[in-house]
């Protein structure tokens, strides 16, 4: 029997996603208070604050842990701040988990929040000719949707995905998120409306590419012992694994923000699982489960097409079978393994440092049976998947 490496999810909380235009600290504090209330704990019970950083809100965003701690009132708690692009939330969760598992604290608060500008994400300001993220905009005009579109087109050629499939993902997620009080977009769409929206990066259309949003999410994590002793509500949900792996050399799939893959010439063995697949595999291995045990998943649908890639990358089906899974309704609520019951990024838009934390909030509500209007039947094991720019994997296994 391996050592128990679970940590309890005692409380979860979110500030609704939107385009509110207020200070990100407000969303983070609202989410934190909500998570603490859910846990039945006071802010003064928290021994470790783990902030997920935002890089578009000045210095307070770079030191998010301290910023949230100050807003909640200094208590002298231990603090850390993490940045890992879209994987920042998972990295912050992992920092808190490590503190708990090492016996350094019993109760940790994880918080991420963002206020975002409108439109395409541009690189942070300044002229940086040695920064691939600056250079890809300058030399190629390659936005984030450029990369999503390259994967989508490749999928169409290799596996016969159609524009109708991509639109169907959007329709499914829009329906899933209809009743989610934290979702920004709560409106049904039809395949025709999706396919009638303007092309952004062929073959992806406006309604198939995730927006950028304001929002905040928080978790109260605790040692299993502490949770057993102090729980007032349902604290039987636990984080069973957190994977924050890097790619392995040679990386043979083009990834944001790079211009080129590694050359595979110098290496005899390139037969690895590929980066996105390795992210979830590491989480499954750590949790001692396999993809066949998963009841529900929250994956990063930065584009509707990318959700199909994730079906394969988290092992819900073999490569090339994602379209069939979708068409058979397996990933719709009521199907075999619903994906993005929250509505996903499709209904939320991305609030970068909050998003990976929000994925865990959703799985917690699903596993507790509290996901009103979007509940997956008898869910006991959930997995999240996500990927941060430059090579930050992010996958969390949640169990009850």
């Amino acid at each position, binding site marked *: 029997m391996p050592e128990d490496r679970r940590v309890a999810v005692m409380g979860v909380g979110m500030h609704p996603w939107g385009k509110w235009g207020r200070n990100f600290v407000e969303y983070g504090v609202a989410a934190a208070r909500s998570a603490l209330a859910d846990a039945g704990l006071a802010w003064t019970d928290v021994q470790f604050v783990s902030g997920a950083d935002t890089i578009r809100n000045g210095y307070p965003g770079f030191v998010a842990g301290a910023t949230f701690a100050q807003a909640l009132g200094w208590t002298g708690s231990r603090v850390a701040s993490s940045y890992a692009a879209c994987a920042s939330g998972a990295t912050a969760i992992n920092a808190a988990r490590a503190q708990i598992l090492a016996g350094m604290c019993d109760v940790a608060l994880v918080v991420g929040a963002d206020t975002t500008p409108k439109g395409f994400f541009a690189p942070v300001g300044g002229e940086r000719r040695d920064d691939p993220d*600056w250079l890809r905009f300058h030399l*190629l005009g390659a936005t984030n949707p450029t990369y999503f579109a*390259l994967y989508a087109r490749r999928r169409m050629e290799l596996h016969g995905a159609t524009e109708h499939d991509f639109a169907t993902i959007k329709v499914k997620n829009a329906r899933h998120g209809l009743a989610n009080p934290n979702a920004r977009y709560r409106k049904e769409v039809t395949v025709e409306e999706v396919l009638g929206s303007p092309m952004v990066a*062929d073959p992806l259309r406006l309604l198939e590419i995730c927006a950028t949003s304001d929002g905040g999410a928080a978790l109260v994590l605790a040692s299993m012992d502490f949770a057993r002793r102090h729980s007032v509500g349902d604290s039987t949900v636990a984080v069973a694994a957190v994977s924050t792996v890097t790619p392995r*050399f040679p990386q043979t799939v*083009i990834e944001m923000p790079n211009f*080129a893959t590694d050359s595979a010439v*110098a290496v005899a063995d390139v037969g690895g699982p590929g980066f996105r697949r390795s992210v979830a595999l590491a989480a499954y291995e750590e949790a001692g489960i396999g993809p066949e045990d998963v009841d529900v998943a929250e994956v990063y649908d930065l584009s509707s097409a990318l959700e199909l890639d994730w079906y394969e990358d988290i092992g819900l089906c073999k490569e090339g079978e994602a379209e069939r899974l979708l068409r058979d309704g397996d990933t719709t609520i009521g199907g075999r393994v619903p994906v993005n019951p929250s509505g996903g990024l499709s209904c939320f838009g991305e609030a970068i440092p909050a998003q990976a934390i929000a994925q865990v909030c959703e799985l917690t509500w699903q596993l507790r049976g509290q996901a009103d209007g979007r509940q997956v039947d008898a869910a006991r094991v959930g997995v999240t998947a996500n990927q941060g720019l430059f090579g930050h994997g992010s996958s969390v296994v949640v169990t009850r």
Partner: protein
Amino acid sequence: MFCRNPACDGTDFEEVPLSRRGRVWSYTDACYTPPVPFVAPDPYVPFCIAAVELAAEKMVVLGQVTAGVTVDELAVGTEVELVVDTLYEDDDHEYLVWKWRPVAAGAGSDARGDDA
């Protein structure tokens, strides 16, 4: 600069010319003006971007596709060649960048390919 191979701690690099031709791994276009620091012409003209697989090097290299080529003229597997072309111009300079040009379209393009 560092070698990306974890099994190699070498710091001496040899410049190796890459193949000038490859096949399209995937492609897309930029229907909307990319944000700064991209320098966009006014009025903006959409362009294609291709990820091109170089067989000998076993790698994929991104690049803009030469002006005038639309997604309808591209497919996974299309043979393309590297040309040097204008990225943008200001009063003093013409700034150059690599671009991909479909081999079949080579004759009609005004990109400065072969003299690069």
